[in-house]
């Protein structure tokens, strides 16, 4: 893919900020918002979902209607939170359920998304679409083969949010995007004293997010 020009953004001004910090925030936030836009408009996600929907219209109308509702909610969430700094974890997880369902309908047994966050954590805050970006990264770079499924787990551990997947890297023609991850880290560094951690072993890839 060609490098896309930076999409202009107008993050809400933070009153207590120094001028220099504000610039850093602007740039990081716009980067993540750019990421959101990419996920919002990710052509592979959109067109593959539409192709799946077409198939379901013939084979399973009930599921087609459900799939369409979920697709609609996913796109509406991405659009409405575009200018929002933070949402509750509950809201994000509700969106992620829809998003994960869409992916699971498409990939079948090749993907499993496991959400085990206790409700007590739902009022914590999170940057919108963080989890979607992380799940998309996981599916983009790893096998989603029914013979060797990708398992993404979202759970809590010591007051942190963990997003973990088994590592089974596949070859991809899409441009690797580590930048998305690093700008997400910068953004979390702005919001929290605790840094976003990336942990990688030969078998696992883990993101540890501070809960806000």
């Amino acid at each position, binding site marked *: 893919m060609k490098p896309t020009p930076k999409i202009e953004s107008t993050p809400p001004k933070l009153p207590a900020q120094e001028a220099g910090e504000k610039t850093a925030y602007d740039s990081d936030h716009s980067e993540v918002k750019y990421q959101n836009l990419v996920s919002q408009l990710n052509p592979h996600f959109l067109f*593959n979902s539409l192709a799946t929907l077409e198939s379901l219209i013939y084979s399973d109308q009930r599921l087609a209607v459900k799939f369409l509702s979920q697709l609609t909610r996913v796109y509406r969430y991405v659009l409405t939170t575009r200018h929002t700094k933070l949402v509750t974890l509950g809201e994000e997880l509700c969106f992620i359920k829809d998003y994960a369902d869409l992916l699971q309908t498409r990939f079948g047994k090749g993907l499993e998304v496991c959400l085990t966050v206790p409700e007590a954590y739902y009022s914590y805050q999170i940057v919108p679409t963080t989890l979607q970006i992380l799940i998309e990264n996981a599916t983009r770079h790893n096998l*989603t083969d029914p013979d060797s499924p990708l398992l993404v787990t979202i759970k809590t551990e010591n007051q942190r949010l963990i997003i973990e997947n088994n590592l089974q890297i596949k070859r991809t023609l899409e441009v690797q995007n580590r930048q998305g991850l690093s700008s997400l880290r910068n953004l979390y560094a702005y919001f929290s004293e605790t840094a976003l951690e990336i942990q990688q072993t030969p078998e696992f890839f883990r993101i540890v997010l501070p809960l806000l």
Partner: protein
Amino acid sequence: MKVLIVEDEALIAEQLQRMLKDIAPQAEVLDVLHSVKNARRWFMQNAEPDLLFMDIQLSDGISFDLFNYFDIKCPIIFATAYDEYAIKAFKVNGIDYLLKPIDEEDLIRALGKFKALQKNQSISTEVLQTLANHPSQIGRMYKEKLIVQHRNASIPINLADVSLFYLDQVIFVVTNDGQKYIAEQNTLDEIEDILNPNEFFRAGRRQIINQNAVESYKGDASGKLYVKLRSSHVSEVEISREKAPVFKRWIDR
């Protein structure tokens, strides 16, 4: 028509099968493969299909990688969600590139291309078959008639009736019945080009003779040949020692 589908998303593959059933009922889907790994295994165990439908990004890698393992010769119709790899697709034998969800019209067009390709291939097979059965037809067709100018009119002459072409400033065409015309061509090489070498023989720098016009021939001590023609115009045509064996092979076949 035997079709193989390589597509990692089962529902999308199902839809393609439905569309094929509608548009090309004669298509027999041999298999649907969802990964590079399965496709590799399939190509190791099976003969190539007539047509291959192939997604590009698969659940375990990129379908183009198959071409590193197999010399796949069948036509391929690529299908992908997003138009990014079209150029690479055509470097292998991609005949079309479809975007998902696949539009019915696009699929019809792609299958049309495949049929056109198949037709061309079967025609060339047909031609080869004909040539195999009739080896004499191998190569080019020869003319049957020659147009000459005579008294401001164009006269078509059957080449079978020509006994001799000879060069004497211009090229004369002599027929079996003794008529003599002037050919439009300037050199005997040009004439020779349009003649069937089984019927006509370049006797030397100045003559081409028709096999049917040869009445008799005889040799002399030096190895030269003297050919007597039925035409009354030229009594004998001399053939050099070097050309004599070629003439003998030509006349005795």
